[in-house]
């Protein structure tokens, strides 16, 4: 190799080295990034059509929608708000279909006896969600809390990343309001949704998302967006399935059950 080529290559290597060293410093952020704020759930539903009030001769006793018992996130605010808002919008949808509605009541016991007697059907809406976190990867690191060597005390701190998969069914059931005997049941599967989350927090309890829901907007905001999509999907399903022509035919069963049970 000629000498001038070697010299040239040497200078190229020197420049590359200098660039590498200067690029191995900590990344500087230009300006402070705007803090991410918690997204407020905006659950809205407008019934597609509007019938005159009481045009369908059917009185429905409505209970607030509830999550299945196995769904352990039901008490988290995002999900709690979801069912509360849904109670109001299902009420509105039923009224728009021409039903007379009593409720929504928080639970069956909350309804008065007269409400039960004067209603033709009891509507139960159950949201059977399954939040799968198998794709959320948790990494733990032992952190020295106190002591040294044999007396050292360590705490495990966790970080996580990945995505959740939310799926489930909407269970609609109509019963005779006094005996709660089921007359009509429909279980409609919901579209599966992937919820990608970003978390920068450090947590003490493995697979416990309570703190992340409360502290990290980048974690909880994707849930809000997904739940808003589900909200419309569920109310559309309810709108389609609670058809007055179909439900009117169930009134006779209520009468039959009451006669049998001597109410």
């Amino acid at each position, binding site marked *: 190799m000629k000498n001038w080529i070697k010299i040239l290559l*040497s*200078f190229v290597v020197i420049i590359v080295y200098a660039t590498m060293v200067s690029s191995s410093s900590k*990344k*500087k952020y230009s300006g402070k990034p705007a803090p991410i704020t918690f997204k407020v759930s905006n659950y809205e539903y407008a019934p597609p059509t509007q019938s005159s009030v009481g045009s369908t001769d059917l009185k429905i006793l409505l209970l607030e929608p509830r999550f299945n018992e196995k769904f352990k996130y039901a008490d988290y605010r995002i999900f709690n708000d979801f069912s509360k808002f849904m109670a109001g919008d299902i009420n509105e949808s039923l009224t728009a279909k021409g039903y007379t509605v009593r409720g929504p009541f928080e639970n069956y016991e909350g309804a008065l006896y007269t409400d039960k007697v004067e209603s033709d059907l009891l509507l139960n809406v159950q949201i059977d969600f399954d939040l799968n976190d198998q794709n959320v990867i948790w990494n733990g690191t032992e952190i020295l809390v106190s002591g040294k060597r044999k007396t050292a005390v360590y705490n495990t701190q966790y970080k996580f990343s990945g995505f959740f998969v939310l799926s489930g069914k909407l269970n609609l059931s109509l019963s005779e309001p006094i005996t709660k005997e089921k007359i009509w049941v429909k279980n409609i599967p919901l579209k599966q949704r992937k919820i990608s989350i970003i978390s920068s927090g450090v947590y003490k309890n493995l697979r416990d998302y309570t703190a992340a829901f409360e502290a990290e907007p980048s974690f909880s905001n994707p849930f809000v967006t997904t739940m808003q999509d589900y909200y419309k999907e569920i109310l559309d399903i309810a709108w389609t399935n609670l058809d007055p022509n179909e439900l009117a035919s169930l009134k006779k069963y209520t009468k039959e059950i009451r006669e049998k049970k001597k109410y």
Partner: protein
Amino acid sequence: MNKRLLYLLLSTLCLLIGVGVYYFFKKDILIYESFIGIKKSNIQGYSFANWLPDLCWEISFLFMLCAIWGNWRLVPLSIKVATLSVIVGTELVQMLGWLPGTGDIKDILVYFIGFSIFTLLFLIKRPK
């Protein structure tokens, strides 16, 4: 094996060790990592990750010069001086805040030790 190829391989190996130490043991995301799109989530940083990669890269740099010239002893003195000046200079320039990064006197010491050991090794083992 061809000596130039051996030096090239050693240079690449040292470079990769440095990159690996930064990736696995450094908490902060570095400029080049961010540029390439490397994502990492190291909770804890280790102090050796502050100087070991620099040393590895310095050795890699010196091996690369060996690959070009055939041997460290054959590298002209002017290039050697320029090399040492750049190695120490980058740290000094960082100290002055003209380059991103943290200039550290310990790093300069590590560079000098690395450079001296490298030169001594080639003095001991004379080329045939």
